[in-house]
């Protein structure tokens, strides 16, 4: 049986269809979740896709955070449900406080669309377990506000607790310096490209794994992230059934 994974559609989401395509390739059954509706339709995991939700006006992700669907996503996350935010989805998660930190304007102010290398800092999460851990992952970024920021204490805590999920790395696979414009193009603090919350069920990243999930697109390094999510969601379905039965 294929696992049902929700893809939230905000007005202005523009990677929802790409995400749906990648989920189908990974054997899942994507379910589009409309921003005005509170119901998540019983999905096993939720993806907040990239784009410009509500135009990203005011501040990326901020208006989306107040939509009915996000109240349900917050509850779903609090109940232990798996949530992955990609690019704009990561910005929404950060604005909603579901993952720590904020995403600031890129260091050089301009929008940046290019391929980057990232490393998965942990391979034991629901979002990365299917990665083989060999070498950096190549995939595109496309954002104007992707500079990861948190205050020093939060950053230290993140590092200590394993909250850094992905980091920008140089071609050799070494962690990028904060001022390395080639490898860490948006200037993210400590080269953070993605984070995971303390419980380990909500994660966000700026790069786009769904655009790097087939060799024909130049890289299929992102497929491992999508696959991890799909497999974890399938497992979560089983677990939740057990939990319900025990109660």
């Amino acid at each position, binding site marked *: 049986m294929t696992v049902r994974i929700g893809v939230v559609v905000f007005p*202005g989401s523009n990677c929802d269809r790409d995400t749906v*395509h990648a989920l189908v390739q990974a054997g899942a059954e994507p379910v589009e979740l409309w921003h005005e509706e509170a119901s998540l339709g019983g999905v096993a995991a939720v993806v907040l896709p990239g784009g410009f939700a509500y135009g990203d006006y005011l501040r990326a992700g901020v208006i989306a955070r107040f939509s009915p669907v996000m109240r349900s996503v917050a509850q779903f996350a609090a109940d232990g449900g798996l949530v992955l935010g990609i690019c704009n989805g990561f910005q929404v998660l950060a604005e909603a406080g579901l993952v720590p930190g904020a995403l600031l304007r890129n260091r050089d102010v301009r929008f940046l669309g290019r391929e980057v290398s990232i490393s998965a800092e942990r391979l034991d999460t629901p979002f990365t377990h299917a990665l083989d851990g060999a070498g950096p992952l190549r995939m595109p970024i496309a954002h104007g506000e992707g500079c990861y920021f948190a205050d020093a204490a939060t950053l230290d805590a993140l590092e200590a607790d394993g909250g850094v999920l992905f980091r920008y790395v140089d071609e050799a696979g070494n962690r990028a310096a904060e001022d390395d414009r080639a490898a860490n193009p948006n200037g993210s603090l400590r080269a953070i490209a993605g984070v995971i919350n303390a419980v380990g069920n909500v994660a966000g990243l700026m790069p786009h794994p769904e655009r790097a999930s087939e060799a024909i697109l130049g890289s299929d390094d992102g497929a491992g992230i999508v696959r991890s999510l799909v497999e974890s969601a399938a497992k979560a379905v089983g677990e939740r059934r057990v939990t319900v039965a025990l109660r």
Partner: protein
Amino acid sequence: MTVAERSVDLLHRRLGVTDEELGAIRDRLGGRDPNDLELAMFSVMWSEHCSYKSSKPLLKTLPTAGDGVVAGPGENAGVISIGDGQAVAFKIESHNHPSAVEPYQGAATGVGGILRDIFTMGARPIAVLDALRFGDPGDARTRHLIDGVVRGVGGYGNCVGVPTVGGELVFDPTYTGNPLVNVMAIGLLEERQLTLAAAPGPGNLVVLFGSTTGRDGIGGASVLASATFGDSDPSKRPSVQVGDPFAEKLLIEASLELIERGLVEGLQDLGAGGITCATSETADRAGTGIVVDLDAIPRREPDMEPFEVMISESQERMCAAVLPDRWEAVRDVCVRWGLPVAVIGRVTDDGDITVVEGGLDDDGRARAGAREIARMPAAALTSDAIIHERLATAPQHRRAAPAPGAPIDPSDRLPERGMDPGAVLLGLLGTANLSSRRAVFEQYDSTVGADTVAGPGRGAAVLRVKNTTKALVASTDGNQAVGALDPYLGAALSVAEATRNVAITGARPLGVTNCLNYGDPTRPEAFWQLSEGVRGLGDACRVLGLPVTGGNVSLYNESPDGPIAPTPVIGVVGLLEDIGRLVGPAFVTEGDPILLVGESTPGMSGSAYAALAGAAVEDGPPALDLAREVALQAFIREAISRELVASAQDVSGGGLAVALAEGAMWSGLGAQVRVPVATSPAVELFGESPSRLVLTARPRFAPALMLLALQHGLPIEELGVVGGDRLVIELIGAGATGASEERGSRIADALEVPIADLRHAWDHGLARALGWEG
């Protein structure tokens, strides 16, 4: 003459309507004078932009028929079948003047406008290509413009989620006072969803949805307000239109949902001429009329005058003809997407565009107490608009291409100057025109949609078609440098180059769209340039067997510095049946032989080399043999489909040396070649004569390739081999040493440059030229 008539006389010229045109308007109104509102509506519809009053007779000469053409000129975009029930829609359009005034919003709304032309047809936009032209990159004004235009293209395209996958960026002093911002968009549709811009069925509702109507883009017509309605504050009438890509994204989704669910009978976007244009064009195409309920139009501002509502160019709006019993479903779709929507009129059978103030009743008739404030035949505004026969006069002096076999070009200056050809190559690679465009296209999202196989940067863009083995391949090209010398040749060369760029990936060009950027058509020389350009475009398309499915004409591209060089920008879309056979321009494997197909002819004028080193006065641009071009494209498609080719690049800007350098830089593999010099070293290394390819192949396929070329009647020779960490070009043959004693030895003519140096020059050239990098 009555007072009322005199006031019209005062007004029409200020609205840009000539006395002759006013007479023609009277003819179409049965001899009466238009009232102010009608005059305003005529003035926008009879503008060059909406009426094509100067160019229509020329455009009629273009070939439009072709295999699989589903919709051609006259529709919002050309549509061509790609098989299996799918079709591709594409069109190019200009936003030159708005971008010169306000580069960010001008470019942004340019992207918005061309996208609407695509999804109006029922196609989902899948790609944008931006063809940009500016003056000297060192100029402060140019830098300001390019910064704004690039941010505007990105700001809009990135937000709506359509990848910008290609285009052009050309610098030429001819554009100093008048930049060109041409944008092409491509969409994909199920053929059965093709939707036309017509308003059929008297009794149907006319529905307006999308953004509300404000005073945007009223610009020149605001004289109406001051002349007629007293001195209202002119600052209330912004001529700059502001784009809202977020609204456009909602408009795309709502429009495609309406079409998919079969809820609309016809759909038209609102662009120039606003509601006036959308209603008159859709009525005229369907042979119907429309009565507009002025009060029903959702507005952004209070106290708008009727003419402001009728000609406003507020962005992100669409107009649909809807069966009355589908209105509620249409409304629900729009509301769900958060878009204002209203019934703003009815389709009638009287052939007129009528504007009513005071409301319509259920049957679409003016309510008691309502007033008809304008009425004119829809055709008078559109298909029956005035046509001007303009005078075309060739300038006194023009340079023609030197005849094949003409005496050796004296503009070869390399050895005479003691100049190292390697230094010339590095110079060329580092020029603003030939260096990497990365600094610009990195500001674009080129991968959203997850279809981009080859994005901007290295030749034609390639987009896979999901759930098929197919790919669409697209390119835009223009050649103002040659166009300035010979507008016919410039246009034909642009067609040859754009189609060749598509063909060398293995794709079959499907059709051509074009944006004709020229000067003031009332100047005989400018009109001659336009007519020569259209002739060149038509001839090239006929010989190549390609339909012109649409395009756009932008005239009056002039500034105090003078008119721009004639610049037809050609957009081509091709179909690659099997994406597994896609061939790119970068070398692939060490040891592969390098082959040159085609031969160089004399003529360096208009080349990148000439721009750098100067050209001899008596020299001309290289000749184009369209039959040779056809053979070349047929050859490369067959060679690729037989999987004989490892890499293919055409010889274009910067000549053979640059084509070889690109193959090396982009692969990291060097090359060792020997180039026979028939005419002169500069012509061989840096000449831009068309219809030539640099190919590499696995060694065992080389003989088959050579045979195939000969079967197509094409010269082909093996130049050398892929490998090493540098590009080495040796010049051999008679011309290498030549008659001149100072010419030196073969060694002096040789060129040897490490790949790292090529890359360095190429990577940084643009950013440096623009001052973005030290």
